[in-house]
């Protein structure tokens, strides 16, 4: 399966640039600062089966069915159905996992401000919601 997770990189802080690094196990994503090999932050998915709106398996099924129906209904013509399915699958995974990537970015941002938040007694959930809304607007995301 092609890697389709696109990085959502913090642009507001020039001091720290984060880029996703896929661990070999594929179980967790690790965000690593590009300017220091020692600063790493592991982001664990809470629900392995639903890392996004739908299970990955079901997204694969969606892609196959959409391809089949477009061809059967003569909406498109192709001799490379597998390639079409692969492309559709990648685009669907990208879109369905957008909220997860935004959530990951919110966690990274809040982690960077954790000391400050503790000092001021800021509510994590409230801050999470605010930062998430901000990022949704920034990326013009549809959740």
């Amino acid at each position, binding site marked *: 399966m092609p890697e389709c997770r696109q990085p959502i990189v913090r642009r507001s802080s020039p001091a720290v640039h984060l880029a996703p690094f896929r661990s070999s196990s594929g179980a967790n994503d690790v965000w690593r600062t590009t300017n220091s090999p020692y600063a790493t932050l592991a982001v664990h998915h809470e*629900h*392995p*089966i639903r890392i996004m*709106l*739908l*299970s990955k*398996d*079901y997204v694969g*099924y*969606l892609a196959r*069915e*959409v391809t089949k*129906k*477009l061809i059967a*209904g*003569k*909406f*498109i*013509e*192709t*001799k*490379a159905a597998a*390639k*079409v399915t692969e*492309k*559709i699958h*990648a*685009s*669907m995974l*990208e*879109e*369905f996992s957008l909220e997860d990537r935004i959530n990951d970015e919110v966690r990274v941002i809040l982690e960077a401000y954790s000391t400050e938040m503790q000092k001021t007694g800021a509510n994590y959930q409230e801050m999470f919601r605010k930062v998430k809304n901000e990022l949704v607007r920034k990326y013009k995301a*549809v*959740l």
Partner: protein
Amino acid sequence: MRVSRDKVNKVAHVVTDALAEVDEADFVEDRNTIRLEVRKVLEELLNQEERIDQAARHKIENQKRTILEGSQEWDILYRKYYSEEVKKLGM
């Protein structure tokens, strides 16, 4: 449907854009017609997925003792029952 209507529209757009990038795929119908067809297919299949989700949740609720959603046990059972429901559809 657990996936919002706006999200389905967005996915249909994204899929149509992705299709347009495949050199080996020729559009017989115009782009908007294809997008609407993709949306229709997605809506049908996502309704089906919701039924799978509901069936898995229902099985967990019908256990002799209460299993709290979010617990590890709930996740394991959900995965098991979800897979069973998916297999029933021959996916």
